[in-house]
């Protein structure tokens, strides 16, 4: 607990109180998932404030409520990733973050490499690098995790409008010689696992970006459209 900086505790407070804008909260959740001390701090704070929730007057559940939940689960079987819900409806994400803590987050993602030895566990494979992609105003748009075995995941943390005749395309710059190389084309901003062929293992400071391209992807094999977000990889292992 003492390892957490004051700034990180303040962010955790904002997060638990519900004061963090949604895009920032999504990124903060990524950090929580990777930082055991932070996760315990957040969990502890939640439990301490829980009596406030328990003070709400009880409301009887409508009939067959469980059936409604089950139906919704069955209707959306593919939306399995933790970040999928609510994102297409997120509000006000185009405005700039109220503070600039992306540097702190990048530092904390890098810091995880140090924290691994402390027995931190996560039931998922470990990405080799993580990149937070920012738009021109510094607002986070997407988080890329590259696992180094020719797979990566992309999760969008902002409300990105993809016209019906456009696709999103994820790129990286493995080496200067290879130039921008496509990691995959997406039709929508659902969390997606990308598989690609025979790229060199991802490196710290490797560039990742997402662009808006004609439907089906760039006709030239290189980025041609506006950049939705770009960022550099922070090494995790």
């Amino acid at each position, binding site marked *: 607990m003492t390892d957490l900086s004051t700034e990180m505790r303040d962010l955790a407070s904002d997060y638990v109180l519900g004061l963090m804008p949604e895009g920032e909260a999504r990124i903060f959740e990524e950090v929580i998932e990777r930082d055991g001390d932070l996760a315990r701090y957040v969990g502890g704070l939640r439990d301490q404030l829980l009596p*406030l929730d328990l003070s709400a007057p009880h409301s009887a559940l409508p009939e067959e409520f469980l059936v409604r939940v089950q139906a919704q689960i069955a209707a959306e079987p593919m939306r399995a990733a933790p970040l999928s819900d609510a994102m297409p409806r997120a509000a006000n994400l185009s405005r700039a973050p109220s503070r600039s803590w992306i540097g702190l987050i990048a530092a904390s993602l890098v810091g995880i490499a140090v924290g691994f030895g402390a027995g931190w566990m996560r039931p998922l494979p470990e990405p080799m690098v993580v990149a937070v992609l920012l738009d021109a105003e510094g607002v986070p748009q997407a988080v890329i995790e590259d696992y180094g075995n020719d797979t990566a995941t992309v999760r969008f943390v902002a409300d990105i409008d993809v016209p019906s005749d456009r696709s999103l395309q994820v790129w990286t710059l493995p080496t200067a010689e290879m130039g921008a190389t496509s990691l995959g084309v997406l039709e929508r901003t659902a969390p997606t696992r990308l598989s690609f062929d025979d790229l060199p293992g991802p490196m710290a400071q490797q560039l990742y970006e997402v662009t808006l391209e004609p439907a089906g992807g760039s006709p030239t094999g290189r980025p041609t459209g506006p950049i939705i977000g770009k960022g550099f990889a922070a090494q995790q292992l």
Partner: protein
Amino acid sequence: MSDDDTGQDRAARLRQALADCAAGQEDGLAVILDIEGGQLLGVAQRILGRADLAEEALQDAMVQVWRKAANHRQSDGSARGWIYAILRNRCLNILRDGRRLSILAPADLALVQEARQQIVPAENWEILSGPGKLRHCLSGLDGQSRQFILLAYVAGFSHGEIAARQDVPLGTAKSLIRRGLSALKECLS
């Protein structure tokens, strides 16, 4: 929920229910709704002020609980706190989604906003905190910090809304909340 259901028993059942959800067994959802459903819906109703929105929020939250159950680690706080946090986040997303609320008629929207303002009374705030340590520690805070924290957590107001409604600069609202929560945390631990 039976009357002799102790807190420990409930905590163990909720933990097991989350484990069941993580294992793909829908019984887990039934248990969570059986134990906490009415209270969860009450929280959503208090924040959102409308039964239809509250039910939608709880339904979405339960879908997320189902999907994220495997991510919950016991060392990171109680299953109960985790479930309520998911519901509160879902409620806040609905509140702050302009498009979501724009389907309401202006008069209905005004009612929702007005009801939220009434959630945190300037007097008798104690009813919000229950009888325990949290109440004691909240009572030790300066009145403004306490009220801002309650407006955020209980009524779901943002920094900007709190600053505007309480007529203080945004930076002041933020620092009062942070200082208050830091003092609260110290008192609670």
